[in-house]
């Protein structure tokens, strides 16, 4: 077990724990950045997809994992970011301006939504955002002159300083673009969470009453959380649109919202790692299922069986298993395994036991 010997107060709020940890993450980054040399184009595309989902997951993680506001409607913001990006590009705005602007616009949209949503708690907020996500579908159809309606829109490659970035033409460039965005967003969140604002997010999540008593402006904190979350989700949406090349009103349905929420729960609510781990599950599950279906089909005499809804069925079962047996998600499990090795043989079963609370309501009848 490594023991970090602290000699400076700044060490407590440094983004990394010690040099060892920093080196590990830099190695990981180098390995991922070198992916084009050790992966073929198909799996590079899959990896890109995973990274895009991870960015979207990071967006939702800030709101749900750190501020405690459950949103079942983030697909609406994915759609908003995606369409904003495409519409700006079509208007002739260069990508380097259009892309950040798409996120900022989505953030502004998020604040607009947050104003009424501030008064809602728990389940009401979840339903509010869910309705929003359903409405977005219809709104895209109704706003056909701008959005292309049911026919959808198409997006080709973009140029950054003469470098062509196209999902199909130059998948390597597109991968690096996504990686850069993912790293920047992650660094941004790591920094945010060690700043007073990030701490106040967590305070609001854990207890609104005590946060208020500590002088946290709850409305303002939630609003900023919504804005940041939606902006990052908007960027993820813009990348998703560029990844798929074509999209319409059904691309960002309410199912995507639900999938996004489930993803961060599987990954582990309240951790940046969780967004990435969950994205790996969501990104690779369809591939894994199709491969295993072929394998099972070959085992029973060559014919592959098509089972509609299998993916979501399996996904649901994985999620139920996680909520029952590992509410902290994959990252929580990893923490336990790591602690087990670090403390061997002194690990105890109840070390990560969480405080359970009895239920009280504010209803009168």
């Amino acid at each position, binding site marked *: 077990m490594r023991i970090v010997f602290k000699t400076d107060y700044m060490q407590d709020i440094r983004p990394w724990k010690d040099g060892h940890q920093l080196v590990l993450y830099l190695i990981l980054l180098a390995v991922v950045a070198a992916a084009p040399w050790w992966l073929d184009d198909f799996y590079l595309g899959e990896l890109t997809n995973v990274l895009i989902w991870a960015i979207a997951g990071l967006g939702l993680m800030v709101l749900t994992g750190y501020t405690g506001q459950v949103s079942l409607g983030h697909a609406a913001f994915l759609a908003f970011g995606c369409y904003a990006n495409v519409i700006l590009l079509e208007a002739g705005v260069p990508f380097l301006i259009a892309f950040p602007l798409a996120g900022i616009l989505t953030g502004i949209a998020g604040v607009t939504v947050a104003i*009424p949503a501030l008064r*809602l708690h728990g389940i*009401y907020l979840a*339903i509010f955002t869910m309705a929003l996500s359903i*409405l977005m579908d219809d709104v895209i159809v109704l706003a056909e002159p701008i959005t292309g309606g049911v026919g959808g829109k198409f997006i080709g490659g973009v140029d950054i300083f003469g470098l062509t970035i196209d999902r199909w033409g130059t998948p390597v460039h597109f991968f690096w673009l996504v990686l850069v965005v993912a790293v920047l967003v992650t660094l941004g969140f790591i920094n945010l969470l060690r700043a007073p604002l990030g701490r106040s997010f967590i305070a609001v999540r854990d207890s609104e009453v005590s946060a208020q008593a500590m002088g946290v402006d709850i409305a303002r904190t939630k609003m900023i959380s919504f804005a940041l979350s939606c902006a990052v989700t908007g960027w993820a949406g813009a990348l998703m649109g560029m990844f798929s090349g074509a999209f319409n009103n059904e691309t960002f349905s309410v199912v995507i919202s639900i999938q996004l*929420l*489930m993803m961060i729960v599987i990954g582990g609510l309240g951790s940046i790692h969780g967004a990435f781990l969950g994205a790996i599950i969501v990104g690779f599950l369809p591939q894994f299922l199709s491969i295993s279906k072929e394998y099972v089909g070959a085992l029973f005499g060559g014919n592959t069986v098509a089972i509609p809804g299998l993916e979501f*069925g399996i996904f649901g079962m994985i999620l*139920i298993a996680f909520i029952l047996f590992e509410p902290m998600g994959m990252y929580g499990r990893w923490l336990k395994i790591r602690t087990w090795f670090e403390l061997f043989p002194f690990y105890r079963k109840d070390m990560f036991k969480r405080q359970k609370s009895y239920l009280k309501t504010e209803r009168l009848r």
Partner: protein
Amino acid sequence: MAEGDEECRANRYWEVKLDNAQLLISGLANGCVYGLIALGFVLIYKATEAVNFAQGDFMMLGAFVTIGLTNTEYMGLPFWLALPISLGIMGALGYLLDRLIIRRLFGESQTAVVILTIALGFVIRFVAGLIWGHEPQTLQNPLAGKEVRFGGLVLGMEDVAVIIVTILLTWALYVFFSRTKLGLAMQGASQNQLAAYYMGVPVKRVQGFIWGLAGVVAGIAGILFAAKGSVDPTTGLLGIKAFAAAVIGGFGSLPGALAGGLIVGVIEPFASRYIAAGYSQIAPYALLLAVLIFRPNGLFSQVRVKKV
């Protein structure tokens, strides 16, 4: 000439009026189904303060269980025999769900239950698709095709049955919650679990019972829905509209849930009749958002200022 014109206009006036009445009745019948699903939400919310996002899928399952028992291509039991069996199965499923899964989440946050039930909805949809296939099916029932004529109105027998059963059920549940000892114990269990324990309320048993009851209500909703129209595994997504109903009614109120269901059900056909296509399907959700914005705790609100 003028007289004929007058007559023509009078006729049209009556036609519009009858048309509207017809729309109103079919809207009410649909609304009753939404109301029944919303009743399921409210029941569970009232007793455990959790929301079952899989209630719509429960209804779908209830419909399919009854179809599996009654329809001739499956088991072909007589309808009135299949009815209690399928309700029993649904009740048992609800109870087992609580016993095996939900009870383990005792003391966890509401969010965990929400996410769990959403996942459960996926699993139920998948399993129902595996067993009964993805083709829309209707329940073969004795009421099918019969009509009631009432002063120029033609009402489907099923619609009338739906409305009557829903009103009776809501009334019975309302009386159960406000008058009986068990019903009051349930309210106590949800308002303050610890205090309810101290008062001798078997909180966990109460919770199991309410999930069973919610299963039965979902079964009834499913049977009525399958008698009215066809079901397929995605029918459960109707539950989203029932959310609108429950929210409009305020999650803690049984008559509120029914009223909310009726409002949503009636708005739908009128919106699709009188508002341009494309805008009309927005109506229930727009109403939901409006209610949440202006009355965050529902029209029949039960929450006052939060105390520390």
